[in-house]
């Protein structure tokens, strides 16, 4: 697990495996509730100013901001 990086640095349309969500607050909890554990994630789109991402996770779509996404640590699937 040496090549861990935060998902906001990921590429579009590529699958990554979620390893961990960092931090300890309600945003982490919300992400875990939504299923950001033991699964793959893919970035589909970014908004015009590249601050909001549309990701595909566990069979549904989620709009999520760069700041939140930067807390999701992933590795190549």
């Amino acid at each position, binding site marked *: 697990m040496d090549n861990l990086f*935060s998902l906001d640095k990921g590429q579009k349309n590529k699958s990554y495996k979620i390893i961990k969500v960092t931090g300890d607050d309600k*945003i982490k909890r919300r992400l875990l509730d939504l299923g950001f554990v033991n699964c793959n994630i893919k970035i589909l789109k970014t908004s*015009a100013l590249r601050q909001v991402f549309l990701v595909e996770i566990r*069979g549904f779509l*989620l*709009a999520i901001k760069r700041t*939140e996404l930067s807390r999701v640590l992933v590795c190549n699937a």
Partner: protein
Amino acid sequence: MRDIVLIGNPNVGKTTFYNFLTKSFEHTGNWHGVTVDKKQKKFNFEGKTFNIIDMPGVYSLSSFSFEEQVTINELLNKDSTILNICDANVLRRNLYLTVQLIEMGKTPILFLNFDKEIKNKGTIYDYDKLSKLLNLQIILNNKLVKTNLIDKINQNNKFSGTNMAYFDKLPICEILNILTKKQIGKFSFVKKEFIAIKILENDENIIKELKLSEQQEKKMKLVISRKDYVQYIAELRYNYIDEIITQVTIKSKSLIYGKYKIDNIILNKFFAIPILFILLFLIFFLTFSSLGAYLSDLLKNLIDVIIGVPIIKFLTYINAPIWIIDLFSNGIIAGVGGLFSFIPQIVILFLFLSLLEESGYMSRLAFLFEDVFYKFGLSGKSIFTILMSFGCTTSAVLTSRNIEDKNTKIKTAMISPYMSCSAKIPIYAVIGGAFFGKGNIFVIILLYVIGIIVGLVVANILSKTILKSDTNAFILEFPPYRIPKFKQILLVIYQNCKSFVIKVSTILLSFSIIVWVLQNFSFSFTYLPNDSSGESMLKTIGEAISVIFRPIGLDNWGIVVSLIVGVMAKEMVVGTMAIINGLPSGVNFDKTLGLSLITSGYIINFSPLTALIMMIFSLLYLPCISTIAVLKKEIGFKYTLIACVIQFFIAYFICFVIYQIAVGNIVSKIIISLLVIVGVLIIFITSYKLNKKGCIYDCKNCKKHC
């Protein structure tokens, strides 16, 4: 009577099912967080009565967001039957909540919504097996759902929810040993293991309720700090669910819920905004210009022929006293009757708003606007409140609860009155129609744009001063596109018509009568027919206040009174004008009233300039009394007061600038223009500077180290 609580993730169809069971018309929509508060109503079936309770949607049972707190309180303190509504399309995530209900010791009945939809797409689950594995009953959304539901409720005590195997992997006993029996006894309706899990998850509310001693706290911390239990417990739950899903899946097709090719165009960087503008123009065009105006005319003539003329004829025929005839023709028919003719336009506007809501497009808008709105101190989710405000601001303010950050929520609620609501349609139609004729639609669009821009600027200033946003979290699920159900749309229209008619025939009617009395009687209560020269109460009051409005060109006591009455309800602005101008009987409302407004002989009359100022001022000046009440409830007295003061000041300021530039002499024109330019520049520069200094995005993750 048994309580049945509807619990589930957001946008799984809880309120739709609630409406179906209880025959109610609660607001539904295809986006996340339509329901913001608990609602309950009776459900009668085959001689039995149940109390159905609809809850806001939640993803989990911790007590972090407002909705979750409402839900968890409902579950902690009561032993009621739980109907856990799940969207079969995203079963895994929905089961995450189910698993927590089981942890809690509850025995929910699983209601699998949209199961036909996934079957058609090619996914089949073995529901019998699922039911056995979880030791819970399952019902599907089919024709027999009511009968099935009653059966399952009666048999539910035979089920108990499975024992969670992963409990062994957690130091549950260790935590429970630290607690006293009395502390555990506080939560009599839940399993004690649940309390231990909540402590491991560091759930503040539960811990606060337990009132731990210092020593207990120390011991707890030792256990909790061993591991990242928040992450670990979530992993255990999802592992468990993944295992169950693998076991019950008979056939599966991996489709992504809410993913459509059309979004490549709708969310495209270049097409997204033009598409939105075309859509909005279409809505405005159909509402105000073509279809809406045509239907409105039709209804107007109908009301005139069926109600207006016969009443006056009848009253004259029976020789009613002149003041009674005047009260009816001038007070009631002119003040209120004419308002009915705006029903078509209001219906069309609400029709489009509900189409937007039901289709799934609104959440896409939130995604598109988050970037921009964030710069103004709002959230992408503010778009829900803003769009709903075009219908009715009073109910729209409630939707701001979906916004997690408190200050962002307050800002969103504070700017929602700047969005022109449907009650202002009569003002634009009558005044604008009289002065701008066919070009009025562009004036109306301009007014909507002014409202939006002013709202955004106010939000921006607020976030630079008294309401800085703390967090900028934005996590929003994309709903699927759905073709709006015809019946649902009809219901929305029926509901809005009904509430409009009720409002007009109760509140607005009584205000009309009050206004008529004040207009036609002096302070010594002598009746003053329209042609008399005496001073009516209304005139005396209006003239006293009108001085304030001289600098913006509205120093006419009639206008002032209309604006004041308008705070009660915006529809009454034109109603009051009709009463004051003492229109001849007959209701051809906007034409007659419009005509009187251009004619200088009437009490209230405008020049094109003052007409425009009147429209802008009415757009911005104050929210109506019911919105003020809701604002006070949602954001507190202080911010409601600030919101009202800012609104009035801005309306006054904008109108002052327009009026003075238009009518003042050259010197004042130049001075005021210069002042405005300097003011705007200052606002821009300061916000730009603040942006640079404060770095608009989260500093923690910024590489620039500014």
